[in-house]
């Protein structure tokens, strides 16, 4: 059967019960069998991916062998902690709260970010909020260029194209957040002799939507093979609370609310999900266009964007490379 002869949802349809069992079996093999660890730490943001991973780990290892960790900071939405607690409560699992704002302030995260923003918005300062965004992009005649959106204390919004220096400065500063979160996850894992679960889905893993040695670091990544829409199917099967399943995916990294589409994909997530599936399964742009609700040219552009993003993010996925492998441990 031609895989595109069905709707995008049907094309990506999985058997959630079977997939859950398969993943849970592997998690137990990896954590107990391979790593000899006693459980798993999951940093839960109240988003769909980390919630599903927490539910999977509880099913695989037992709820008493799971620690749900919350790591809010000054720019986090209060919803993240509230929904994170909802996950721990639903599971009946232990949880811990680590407010990382103090660490971030000490590292200069906020100050360095603000200095970078002031390169293009000189008035940016106390009381301002910000986020960085990409244009909604399916047009091959445009580039996906980042802009910063700032909101002044009196509510005025301004959008300014970033320079390379400002963009890299903001990125390097905000990456402290994901790396600090991971540091806290490993702190708790060390105390409990647990492993750390990573939470990327296939879109994020494939396209490098993570911070190296930040949210990209983990001992195992149980949903990295699943497209975003498949994660939602597992969420429904696992009984992840409805409010979490309905929440718009967000990076929860910037003081102004920022969707993942604005930050990274610049294409609606469900379309990106389907296009990545099409690309990975050798489906032509013409076949994909109608089903994805895009033109053939747009799909061709997205396919090229996927290739180019994979090349650009190879470094993020790469483990440290040895000049010679060592015979004893690889």
């Amino acid at each position, binding site marked *: 059967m031609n895989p595109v002869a069905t709707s995008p949802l049907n094309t990506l349809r999985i058997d959630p019960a079977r997939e859950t069992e398969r993943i849970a079996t592997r998690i137990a093999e990896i954590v107990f069998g391979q790593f000899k660890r006693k459980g798993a730490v999951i940093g839960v943001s109240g988003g769909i991916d980390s919630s599903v991973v927490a539910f999977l780990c509880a099913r695989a290892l037992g709820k008493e062998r799971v620690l749900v960790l919350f790591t809010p900071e000054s720019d986090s939405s209060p919803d993240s902690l509230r929904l994170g607690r909802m996950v721990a409560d639903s599971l009946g699992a232990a949880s811990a709260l680590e407010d990382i704002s103090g660490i971030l302030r000490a590292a200069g995260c906020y100050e360095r970010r603000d200095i970078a923003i002031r390169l293009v918005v000189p008035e940016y300062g106390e009381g301002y909020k910000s986020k960085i965004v990409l244009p909604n992009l399916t047009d091959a005649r445009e*580039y996906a260029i980042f802009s910063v959106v700032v909101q002044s204390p009196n509510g005025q919004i301004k959008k300014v194209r970033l320079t*390379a220096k400002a963009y890299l400065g903001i990125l390097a500063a905000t990456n402290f957040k994901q790396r600090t979160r991971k540091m806290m996850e490993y702190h708790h894992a060390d105390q409990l002799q647990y492993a750390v679960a990573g939470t990327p889905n296939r879109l994020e893993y494939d396209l490098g939507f993570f911070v190296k040695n930040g949210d990209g670091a983990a001992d195992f990544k149980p949903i990295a093979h699943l497209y975003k829409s498949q994660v939602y199917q597992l969420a429904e099967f696992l009984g992840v609370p409805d409010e979490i399943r309905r929440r718009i995916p967000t990076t929860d990294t910037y003081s102004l609310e920022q969707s993942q589409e604005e930050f990274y994909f610049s294409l609606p997530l469900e379309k990106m999900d389907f296009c990545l599936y099409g690309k990975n399964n050798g489906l032509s742009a013409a076949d994909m266009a109608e089903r994805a609700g895009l033109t053939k040219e747009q799909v061709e552009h997205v396919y090229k964007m996927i290739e180019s993003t994979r090349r650009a993010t190879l470094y993020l996925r790469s483990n440290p490379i040895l000049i010679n492998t060592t015979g004893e441990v690889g």
Partner: protein
Amino acid sequence: MPNLQDELRSYIVENYLFGQDDGFRNGDSFWELGLMDSTGVLELISYVEEKYAISLESSEIIPANLDSIEKLARFVSRKIEDSSAGPEIAPAMDTPGASQ
């Protein structure tokens, strides 16, 4: 004075090809070759804006203007001419918003 294309080529080869320009032609597409990602485009914009004292409008940041050394040289040359001619002079190509 060095030719504009040669000058831009030196910058591209040095910064995006790490000095290795084997077989790289001035008409080759940066995008097709995977030479630069979106950060690379931002770097290129910053470079030409500073080096040639020009200012790029968002509507001008498109592959038609920036995606090869030949296109880039044509575009930068036109921008330099426009800026020295003053704001009343309309842009030579279909670049809405190029003058202000």
